[in-house]
């Protein structure tokens, strides 16, 4: 299995290099919205400007590290019938997607972390104040967030076996997550009801939760509870994905090819 993965990773790495410019554009694509939101919050609470700068820069970073695109890929592949190519290979198609995710996110980290370090030299607001255990928990939370988003995106993508407008379904989910994952506002700024919702839904654990650990907004008991809820969602999503996969393969007719 490890040897297979090394081969997969190498293949995806070469694929990525072939489309350098597209990769780069794609990486910088989602920056405008968090920056604008940052300006809004700096305007509303000028006295806390520095913490908003840190928060929204972290949003950009974590969002990139946990982003998931598999729903669009699956939607296209299943609709056009090219998904059959993957099905014929002797390894579950999800491994290709996982390898691709690992490679791209590794590249994002390799580029974004040095950028952050250089930026922190010029803007002290970006300097993180984290203890060792916070760093470990932060990284763990990012990986967990990436896994959650990937599973959600992949499960949604599998819906393409039944419906043709999967991208639209995922678009709606994405908009809900915009509010509940902390991209529009730090979750503590939300009205109380929304905040309560955000705690129990999975979106918080995709972006906001790692940042809360990094800034120290969540600590001790709260972190433990967060990980427990996220792990619960993880189990739910894995079960859903397995079920969708079994049912979907039975349904698949591979028109087109």
């Amino acid at each position, binding site marked *: 299995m490890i040897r297979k993965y090394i081969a997969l990773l190498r293949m995806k790495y070469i694929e990525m290099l072939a489309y350098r410019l597209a990769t780069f554009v794609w990486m910088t694509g989602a920056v405008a919205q968090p920056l604008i939101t940052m300006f*809004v919050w700096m305007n*509303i609470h000028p006295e806390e400007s520095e913490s908003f700068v840190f928060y929204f820069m972290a949003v950009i970073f974590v969002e990139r590290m946990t982003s998931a695109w598999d729903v669009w890929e699956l939607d296209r592949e299943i609709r056009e019938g090219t998904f059959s190519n993957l099905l014929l290979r002797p390894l579950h198609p999800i491994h290709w997607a996982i390898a691709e995710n690992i490679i791209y996110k590794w590249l994002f980290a390799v580029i974004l972390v040095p950028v952050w370090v250089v930026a922190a030299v010029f803007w002290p607001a970006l300097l993180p104040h984290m203890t060792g255990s916070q760093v470990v928990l932060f990284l763990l939370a990012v990986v967990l967030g990436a896994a959650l988003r990937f599973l959600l995106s992949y499960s949604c993508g599998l819906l393409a076996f039944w419906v043709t407008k999967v991208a639209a379904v995922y678009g709606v989910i994405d908009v809900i997550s915009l509010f509940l994952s902390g991209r529009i506002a730090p979750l503590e700024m939300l009205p109380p009801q929304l905040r309560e919702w955000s705690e129990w839904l999975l979106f918080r654990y995709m972006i906001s939760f790692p940042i809360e650990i990094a800034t120290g907004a969540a600590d001790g008991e709260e972190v433990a509870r967060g990980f427990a809820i996220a792990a619960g969602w993880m189990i739910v999503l894995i079960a859903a994905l397995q079920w969708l996969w079994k049912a979907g393969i039975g349904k698949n007719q591979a028109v087109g090819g």
Partner: protein
Amino acid sequence: MRRYGRVFREFFRACLVEEMEYRSEFFGNFIASFFGIAVALLTVHIFFYQTDRLGGWTYGEVLVLLGVFNALRGFIDFALRPNMPRLLEHVRRGTLDYVLTKPVDSMFYVSFRHLVFWRLIDVALGLGVIGYGLYVERYVPSAADVCMFLIVMAASLLLIYSLWMMLMTTSFWVVRIDDLSFIFDSFFDTARFPGSMYRGAVRFVITYVLPAVLITNTPALALLGKWSVPAALAALAVAIFFLWLARRFWRFALRFYTGAGG
């Protein structure tokens, strides 16, 4: 000029016929537009949950601004966005030859040939939000306000068209990227909020260099009765200047077009 009116009407008719083929899509698109504006309203609502002023603008005023923004974006999605990928295709495959040999202006043709009608829903919803904002603000615009609004709105449309056209023209050099529109979107998204909200260099750039703020803020202010004749004239002048610039750029770019592959 009359000929162009007739040609445009013909584009209009052709695209309408095309769209009528997919009538069942209409309902889905309608819901999507509604959803979009609901999200935008909720966002503003969340901001105003923490404050009662955003860059000096009240809730109602920001809603008027949001309405203007939505209407203008609806216009972009209606007339301009559908044409961007087509120009890239034309340049890449050399089929721009056919456009250049037609007896209409090529810039006019490549920017208005394809229209997506259902996007006009966004324009209508934008106008609705403007109305709601005015109601929240308890302000009834006078005839002069509306007149001013129409003038600066026309200037904004010209400006958007020019900026978009300039971006589209770069496709003569960067044919690789599928869609350049996200560059425009990133920049235009800043116009969703009052310009006075931004700080430092960002504020300078989006006010003077790429006048995103001018595009949405001036019409909103005009409708709220906070217009001034010099500001409106300045907006018109800037719009005409950018149109001239876009025109020059298009001509310049055409010289680089070799028609290879056609």
